[in-house]
């Protein structure tokens, strides 16, 4: 399923799909709730490279449609551009559950910057304290520091 060449939806398994590319006015998200099974749909967002304000509008509509259809959304590998929107616009969070996400880390030792995957389930206790889990630099093996304010970047995990 494609929209231009910039966005596509890939089925990865029963009730498991990956969104890949740019979410903008050409990305049709309305078909997603119908792909749920037993009221569940897992969205892998690791391949999302960009989302603009029109994509945000459609994302909010997706959340509303999923709630109306009683479909629970599970978001995994949530890319940083999506995290920024989840933090800026509360309505983008809906009732979706985030199980893993990318987060910025930096190595003070060698200067490497990385976007690393955080398992929100395994690190639930740490994240609930508003702390980011420890990570090791792939390049030099030193401890990496979380490269944003945890209270700002992890705000999307809060339930209002």
């Amino acid at each position, binding site marked *: 399923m494609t929209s231009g060449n910039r966005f596509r939806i890939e089925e990865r398994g029963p009730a498991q799909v990956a969104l890949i590319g740019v979410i903008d006015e050409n990305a049709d998200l309305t078909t997603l709730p119908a792909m749920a099974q037993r009221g569940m749909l897992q969205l892998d967002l690791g391949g999302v490279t960009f989302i603009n304000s029109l994509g*945000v509008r459609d994302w*909010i509509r997706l959340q509303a449609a999923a709630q109306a259809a009683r479909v629970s959304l599970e978001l995994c590998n949530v890319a940083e551009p999506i995290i920024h929107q989840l933090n800026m616009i509360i309505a983008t969070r809906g009732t979706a559950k985030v199980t893993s996400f990318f987060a910025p880390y930096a190595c003070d030792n060698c200067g490497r910057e990385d976007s690393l995957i955080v398992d929100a389930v395994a690190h639930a206790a740490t994240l609930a304290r508003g702390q980011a889990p420890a990570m090791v630099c792939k390049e030099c093996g030193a401890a990496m520091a979380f490269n944003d304010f945890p209270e700002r970047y992890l705000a999307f995990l809060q339930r209002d």
Partner: protein
Amino acid sequence: MSESSILIVHPDRKTQRVVQRILGATGYRVNIADDIEQAIRLIGHHAPVLVVVDGSVVLSDRAEAFFDAAEARGTEACMTLLGNMNADDVPKILMRGAVTNLLVHQMPTLAEELTITAHKLLRRDLFGLDKYLLWGVDPRTAELKQGSDRAGLVEQVANDLRSAGQSPRVSSMAMLVTDELLSNAVHNAPVDANGNHFRRDWPRDQEVQLLPNETVKLRWACDARYVAIEVNDSFGSLDRKTILHALGKNDVRESGGGAGMGLALTYRSCDHLVFNLSPGRKTEIIALIDVRQSPTERLPASSYNVFVER
């Protein structure tokens, strides 16, 4: 040296001195007031061309009387500093809907922002991202002639920044800013002879062919301090009220919908947003992303200026 003056209104002596040194370089006489009442008296005596005020002045009960006095004496513009206030106070300032120049950063960034803002206003020379970049930087230029060019231009800016070694975070912010500003210039800027925004409600997923007078100009550059992105349209339809309403939109956090969301997201995705307006002739928006600072050094607030050509 001109007899014209600049007035600083700030309760903190150290900040007064810092700002006085910065603005003294303009060659204008700089007067200082500790509080709003003293400021109103000085405005009456000196008719300053520029006023620089602490954010607390804007939020005080006497703010309206102060701004009225400045306007009555022909003050060109008021610049508001975040000063001793917290970045969390910025929404309160935005909600006032009257602050056209808000500078939130501390030294040394404050010196850059204050100097450029003052010179633009005093010289009445508003346009161009070059004013925010170091000498010798050569901005790249592109034109958008149809709506579908937007995606390619956004990708071009991002690729340029990535190949220059900028982080994924910076290129991601630049993509969002470029996309929203181009989209705004294509769909919101165009007006007909009656001032109607005839393209505002067109479906965004349909192709738009721009007439020669509707062509949108994009420039971008990086000088290792800032990524600067400039978008120009030749309608000049964006006005101060619309801008301040968009920047002050509280519901960007709540609903994510409605007019002005693109500008609100742009403002929250850069460190300094500059609007240069020539009514009926040209609108230029410049977004600056500070690449010197890591995310942990970035303020949760951004500066902005709204300049109107007279």
